[in-house]
C-alpha cells in the first residue's frame, strides 16, 4: 500500500480523501493557503504545509510548490480530488517528472477528454453515440450557419476548452447565430484563453445521467451504475441521486457497457465519469468525460457499497481492481443535496460570514461530507460548496423522507445556505414522482410563496412571541440592574406621552 499521500485540495473533498487515507493507515500531508490555516483538512492531516496566500492562483493552483512539498515531506503520491489541478495535464506530467504518483489518469487521457471536441471525435470513433453536432471547430459565421442548418435548430454553441456553462450560447434561429458566436468566443477566450467553438443539437426535455467507472492499470474497467444529475441551476448540479428513475436494468447495462468501451478507448485509469444526455425516448448521447473524482461520487458509494476513494488509492498503489462487474449490485437508493453558502431566497447570491452555530444531522442512513465547522469563516475565495448531505434509503420514497428529516435537522447559523431550497424542492410533487429534467429549475420556482398558509400564521405568532420575550427580558433586566439604563429612560418618557387621557 501507499505509505504517505499529499492531498492537493481543500474543503469537504480534501477531508473526505484524508479520511480514506487514515482508514487505510496511510500517512497524510495537507497543503493550505493563508485563509485556510484553521480549516478541517489542515487539522485532520498528519502534516500540513502553507503554500501561499488566499487566492487559488497563489496557493492551490501552484503545482510547483505542491510538488516541492510532496518531495520534502516524502509523500509518494498526490491526490488532486476535483477542481484546482485535477484535470491539469501539465501538473500530471510534472508529477511524473518528480517521480510522484498522480492519482488519476495519464496526461494524454486528461488532455484528450479536456478538449471537448477531441473527446467527441474519440468517442464517435469508438462507436459511442454522441450528441448530434459538429466534430470540427466552427470557423466562422458561414460555417456555423451551415452546421446549424444540417443538425436543425435549436442548437448550442460550446467552447472546446469549456465546462460549467462558460462560453456557451443557445441559438434558436439563424438570426441569432452571429451574436451568439461573438458572445461565446469572447467568453471562452476570457475564461479559458482559447476560443475554439463547436456546435451541438439542443436536445429538449433531457436528463443529465452519468456513469461511474473504475479502471486499474491492468486494463480492467467496471461501471458502478448511474447517477441522475438533472437538478441543475445554471449548469451547477444541486441534487444528485443513484439510481435514476429513468434507467432500468437493461438500460443501465447498455450505458455501463458503452461507458466501459469509452474508457478503454482512451486507456483510462483510476476513477472517472462519463456524462450522458438522455432524451424522453431514453436515447442517450455522450456529453463529456470527467477524468477525476466527482463531487457526487458518494451516492454511488452508498448504493454499491464500493468506497471509490479507497479503490483509487489501492489502484494507485498498483493493486488490481478488487471487483468484477458481476460483483456490483445496486442496493436501495441514495440522494445527495449539495449544501452551498448561497442564499436561495436571494437568487442564490453567495453568502459570506462566520458560521456561528452548526448542528449536523446524523442517525441511520445519513452521511455528511463536510469541510466546515462552527467558527469557520466562509469567504469569497473558493467554491461555495461547503458540505454534502448524502442519504441512503431502502427505496426512493424512504430516501426522500429521510433526506427531509435530515435537512430539518441541519442547522447552520451565520450564513445563508441552500438548505431551505432543498427542503422546498423535496416537497414538490414533480421531484417526488421523479419527473425531472435539466430545465426543472427554469420552469418551477420551488421557493414560490403561495400566499398565506398555516405556516404564515405560525410565523406571525413566532415573531410576535420573540418580540414579546425580548421586551420582557429588557424590562426584567433593567429592573434587575437597578439603574434603569438609557433605554429604560427613553421607554418611560415615551410612556408618559402615550398615556391614554
Amino acid at each position, binding site marked *: 500500500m501507499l505509505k504517505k499521500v499529499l492531498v492537493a485540495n481543500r474543503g469537504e473533498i480534501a477531508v473526505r480523501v484524508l479520511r480514506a487515507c487514515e482508514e487505510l493507515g496511510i500517512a497524510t500531508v495537507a497543503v493550505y493557503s493563508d485563509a485556510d490555516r484553521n480549516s478541517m483538512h489542515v487539522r485532520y492531516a498528519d502534516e500540513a504545509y502553507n503554500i501561499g496566500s488566499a487566492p487559488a492562483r497563489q496557493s492551490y493552483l501552484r503545482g510547483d510548490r505542491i510538488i516541492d512539498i510532496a518531495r520534502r515531506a516524502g509523500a509518494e503520491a498526490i491526490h488532486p480530488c476535483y477542481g484546482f489541478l485535477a484535470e491539469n495535464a501539465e501538473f500530471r506530467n510534472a508529477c511524473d517528472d518528480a517521480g510522484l504518483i498522480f492519482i488519476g489518469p495519464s496526461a494524454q487521457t486528461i488532455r484528450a477528454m479536456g478538449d471537448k471536441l477531441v473527446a467527441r471525435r474519440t468517442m464517435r470513433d469508438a462507436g459511442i453515440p454522441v450528441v448530434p453536432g459538429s466534430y470540427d471547430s466552427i470557423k466562422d459565421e458561414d460555417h456555423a450557419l451551415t452546421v446549424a442548418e444540417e443538425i436543425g435548430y435549436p442548437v448550442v454553441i460550446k467552447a472546446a476548452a469549456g465546462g460549467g456553462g462558460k462560453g456557451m450560447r443557445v441559438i434558436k434561429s439563424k438570426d441569432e447565430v452571429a451574436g451568439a458566436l461573438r458572445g461565446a468566443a469572447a467568453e471562452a477566450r476570457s475564461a479559458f484563453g482559447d476560443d475554439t467553438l463547436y456546435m451541438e443539437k439542443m436536445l429538449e426535455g433531457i436528463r443529465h445521467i452519468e456513469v461511474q467507472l473504475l479502471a486499474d492499470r491492468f486494463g480492467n474497467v467496471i461501471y458502478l451504475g448511474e447517477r441522475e444529475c438533472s437538478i441543475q441551476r445554471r449548469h451547477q448540479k444541486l441534487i444528485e441521486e443513484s439510481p435514476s428513475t429513468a434507467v432500468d436494468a437493461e438500460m443501465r447495462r447498455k450505458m455501463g457497457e458503452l461507458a466501459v468501451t469509452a474508457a478503454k478507448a482512451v486507456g483510462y485509469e483510476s476513477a472517472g465519469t462519463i456524462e450522458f444526455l438522455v432524451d424522453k425516448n431514453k436515447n442517450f448521447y455522450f456529453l463529456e468525460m470527467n477524468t477525476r473524482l466527482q463531487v457526487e461520487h458518494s451516492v454511488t458509494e452508498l448504493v454499491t457499497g464500493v468506497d471509490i476513494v479507497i479503490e483509487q488509492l489501492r489502484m494507485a498503489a498498483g493493486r488490481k481492481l478488487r471487483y468484477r462487474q458481476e460483483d456490483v449490485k445496486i442496493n436501495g437508493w441514495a440522494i445527495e443535496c449539495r449544501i452551498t453558502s448561497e442564499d436561495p431566497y436571494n437568487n442564490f447570491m*453567495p453568502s*459570506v460570514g462566520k458560521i456561528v452555530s452548526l448542528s449536523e444531522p446524523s442517525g441511520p442512513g445519513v452521511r455528511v461530507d463536510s469541510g466546515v465547522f462552527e467558527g469557520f469563516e466562509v469567504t*469569497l475565495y473558493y467554491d461555495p460548496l461547503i458540505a454534502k448531505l448524502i442519504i441512503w434509503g431502502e427505496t426512493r420514497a424512504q430516501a426522500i423522507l429521510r433526506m427531509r428529516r435530515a435537512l430539518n435537522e441541519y442547522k447552520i447559523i451565520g450564513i445563508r445556505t441552500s438548505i431551505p431550497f*432543498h427542503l422546498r424542492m423535496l416537497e414538490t410533487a414533480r421531484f417526488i414522482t421523479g419527473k425531472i429534467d435539466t430545465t426543472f429549475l427554469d420552469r418551477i420556482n420551488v421557493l414560490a410563496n403561495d400566499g398565506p398558509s398555516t*405556516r404564515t400564521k*405560525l410565523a406571525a405568532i413566532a415573531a410576535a*412571541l420573540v*418580540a414579546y420575550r425580548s421586551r420582557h427580558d429588557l424590562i426584567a433586566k433593567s429592573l434587575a440592574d437597578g439603574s434603569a439604563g438609557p433605554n429604560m429612560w427613553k421607554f418611560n418618557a415615551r410612556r408618559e406621552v402615550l398615556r391614554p387621557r
Partner: protein
Amino acid sequence: MRYYAQIDGQMLEMDIEGEGDDLKVVLDGETLVASLRLVSPPSLYSLILDNQSHEVFVENRNGEYVVMIAGELCHAKVQDERAKRLAAVTPKGHANEGEVVIRAPMPGLVISLDVSPGDVVEKGKGLLVLEAMKMQNELRAPQAGTIKSVNVQQGERVENGRVLLVLT
C-alpha cells in the same frame, strides 16, 4: 399586551401574556398555550404551541422579523400596541420616502449594467450582473419604479455594501 403582525399582506392581531414556558396567545378568539426557548443563539428557537413542536429561525432586523420554518421564509412586521401608538404620533420622515437603495450584496466585479437613470422598471427586472466566487449573479429590481441614479460602471470592482443604484 396586544401585538400587530403584518405578514404576506395580512394583518394579524393577537394578545400575548404570561411568563416562562406558560405564555398565552389569543388570536381570532382562540387561546393558544406557548413555550418559546432560544436553543441555538442567536436565532434558532423551539416553539411549542398547543403541544405542537416547531423549530423556527427568527431574526429581528429593527422590528422587521425574518422567520424561517421548514425552509419557508416569511417577513413579518411586528409592533406592540405602544409602538403602534407611538408610530401614529411620530411624524413620518418623508425625505427619500419610497427610495430603494440597491447595494452590492458581496464584493465583486460589475459584468454588465442593464439600466440607465430614468428607466422605468418592473419588479424583478434584471438591473446588473455582478461576478463573484466564479459565478455571475444578477441583481433584480425588488419593486417596480424608476431608476434615479446609477452609481457604478461596467467593469468596476465593488466592495460589499457599495451603493450600486437608487430606485424610486
